[in-house]
């Protein structure tokens, strides 16, 4: 898994690529938490994520909980079919704010 971060006015975007499984999910969580601490809105680009397991989803849930507690926003975008399927199967698709594109994620009101 690889990540990179971009700063936009009012939004930080974390671009993620590769697989998110138990071997990398702690680092994934840490990176998102660090980014969230510095921005009012965190957008996570998952368009290049090929695979995510329940530990990756759990990391996203933890970041979402932290965002809600801090009254910040977490937006996921670019979800492909395997990632969508895992969210559906774990019944967590509806708790996240999800957009198709970066533009929609940034402009989401």
């Amino acid at each position, binding site marked *: 898994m690889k990540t990179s971060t971009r700063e936009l006015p009012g939004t930080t975007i974390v671009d993620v690529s590769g697989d998110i499984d138990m071997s990398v999910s702690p680092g994934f969580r840490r990176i998102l938490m660090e980014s969230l601490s510095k921005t009012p809105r965190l957008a996570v680009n998952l368009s290049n994520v090929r695979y995510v397991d329940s530990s990756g989803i759990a990391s996203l849930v933890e970041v979402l*909980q932290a965002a809600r507690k801090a009254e910040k926003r977490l937006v996921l975008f670019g979800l492909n079919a395997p990632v969508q*399927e895992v969210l559906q199967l774990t019944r967590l698709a509806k*708790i996240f704010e999800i957009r198709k594109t970066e533009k929609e994620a940034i402009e989401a009101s």
Partner: protein
Amino acid sequence: MSCDKPSTPEPLATPDVSGPLRFQMRIPSDPRLLAVVRCTVSELAAIRGFADDQCQSIALAVDEAHSNIIRHAYKDRFDQEIEIGFRAEGDYLEFTLVDHGEPIDRSKYCGQPLDGIALGGRGTHLIRQIMDEVCYERTSEENRLRLRKYLAAGTSKG
């Protein structure tokens, strides 16, 4: 000088793609090998005739079981042994994961309702959603988890 005319090579025998197939691997409980196992599982499912999306789902289910062994049975020790067996016969494939770690709470594999956004239990929930049969047993000092998926559509889940 004369040269022998080369003979036409005999075509190689090819296995019956729908015939029985077995595969086994013994690996350390190193999380870096999760991706290797996923690739292997996905390829084995494809050999057996499952569609691409099903191969991905089966790989996810086995990956979740594999991760559970590392995290719960072996308490994040990365130097223990995991045995993963594969068997394809008839209209199904089956993965068996064996470890020598702590016994697992059997109820974890019996299906629990998911509670809001609680973090626990989603891995085993995924396994039960994807696979048609999930059987766990504890024998002497082994945990043995068998995951079966039927090829035919419409098979009811266990």
